[in-house]
């Protein structure tokens, strides 16, 4: 479904991603792991045109999408729940969700999309008219994921969905991610919480210094010490 090769991202002279190859098959849940500053967010953002792509090929459903602008990509079925949530704080919960469906061509399926998101996150239904900025961290994360689901994505990119959340909420979010995979949504997620990620994903990639330093099934990664090394900076 997604095939990335030779991906490079540079902010001016700083090369944050130095030639990454990765792919995600239909229906898979794949993790992109690595320490802070490894280039994980830059990689995800590049896939949706939000970070400066220097080189590389991004194939989505057998089409090269590397040159397409962000606003078009969402219409192809690829979307991101960004790091730090980036919900629209001055807009209501309902307006945030409505924007999530902005690029959706099938307007008649909107009610269904709302119902689906509200079924996953009943709390959002309760807070529908509240300003998103007044939600708790966990609720904001649910809104960020719910907003991304409104488009009915084929490929969902999640950047640090558990960042800054209380342990109990983290568990809820991880359960939810497995549930989304079970519904057939293909997911590529970036996480700091390695142990919990490896419990739910099919495969993982490990990044360090802008490069992929290891890849394998969840079992393989759990068994080896590459992940640990990558976090300690010795990978």
């Amino acid at each position, binding site marked *: 479904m997604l095939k990335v090769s030779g991906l490079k991202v540079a902010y001016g002279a700083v090369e944050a991603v130095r030639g990454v190859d990765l792919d995600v098959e239909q229906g898979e849940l794949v993790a992109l792991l690595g320490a802070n500053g490894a280039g994980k967010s830059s990689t995800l953002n590049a896939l949706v045109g939000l970070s400066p792509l220097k080189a590389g090929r991004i194939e989505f459903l057998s089409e090269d999408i590397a040159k397409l602008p*962000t*606003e078009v990509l*969402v219409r192809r079925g690829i979307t*991101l729940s*960004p790091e730090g949530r*980036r919900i*629209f704080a001055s807009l209501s919960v309902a307006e945030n969700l409505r*924007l999530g469906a902005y690029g959706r061509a099938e307007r008649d399926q909107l009610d269904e999309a709302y119902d689906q998101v509200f079924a996953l996150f009943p709390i959002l239904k309760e807070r529908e008219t509240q300003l998103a900025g007044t939600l708790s961290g966990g609720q904001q994360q649910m809104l960020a994921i719910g907003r991304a689901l409104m488009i009915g994505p084929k490929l969902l990119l999640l950047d640090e969905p558990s960042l800054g959340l209380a342990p109990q909420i983290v568990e809820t979010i991880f359960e939810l991610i497995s549930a989304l995979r079970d519904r057939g949504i293909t997911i590529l997620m970036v996480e700091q919480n390695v142990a919990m990620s490896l419990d739910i994903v099919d495969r993982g990639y490990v990044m360090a210094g802008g490069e992929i330093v290891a890849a394998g099934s969840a079992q393989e990664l759990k068994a080896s010490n590459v992940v640990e090394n990558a976090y300690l900076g010795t990978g």
Partner: protein
Amino acid sequence: MLDLILQQTINAVALGGTYALLALGLAIVFSIMGMINFAHGELMTISGYTLMYCGLAGVPFVISAPLAILAAAGAAVMMERVAFRPVRNASAATMLVTSFAVAAILQILFQNLIAKRSKPVMIPDVLSESIAFGDFLIGINKLLAIATTIAMLLFLNWFLKRTDVGIAMRAAAEDFPIAQLMGVQANAVIAGAFALSGMLAGVAAVLWVSQRASVDPLMGFVPVLKAFIAAILGGLGSLTGAVAGGFMLGFIEIYLTAFLPEHLLEFKEPIGLGIVVLMLLWRPNGLIPAAAIGSQKV
């Protein structure tokens, strides 16, 4: 005395409303692009000349007024397409200088193609009449200005809260890249913001000209300068702030004119600005600051 206060309050609301509409136009564009469009005044002037030519051609005011508003909105969209889109990703300073250049070019065109001096605009007689409310008279043009301002504010509120494009504009003002991630098209939302701001300039121009019955090449300069002050007073980029700032400035000006002792009247502008400065010292980010000031723009 009470009559005078009431009378002046109506004048203040009428003038403040016009400033509010202009400040809103500046704020809408600023909130999305991070640019103050100093050519906003020239959009007013374009409306003014549209009214003038329509009057000469015998077009009735009820038709020429909407045409004038449409002309300003169309000119704003064209301005964006021709002048501002190429510098969209440039620095704030570059965009500012571009808007000065657009304003200067348009002023020169008006002076050379239309007239250097002020020209009369035909305004229906009914607008210069007054209605008596008990003891005092209210000009119909003042009532029209107030009613139009209220209608525009209601329309804008509906547009920004209830329509997809309006919600997209508010989202883009808060976090442009993420709005694009939602599928909001940058070109469309920016063109929409200019159309809206042009429309507001057009409405303000119709109100302005119907109080004065004349138009000149620099007509837009003073009101838009005031609107700029109002937008800063309210909190740059904040739409509610722009409205508050506009009305506040209207009240300051009218009350100073009405109630300052005669020998101080010639100082009313500096005194007014002094009051604005004091208010800004008290609230440096304006009366109602924008929530996400300094957020990432296009």
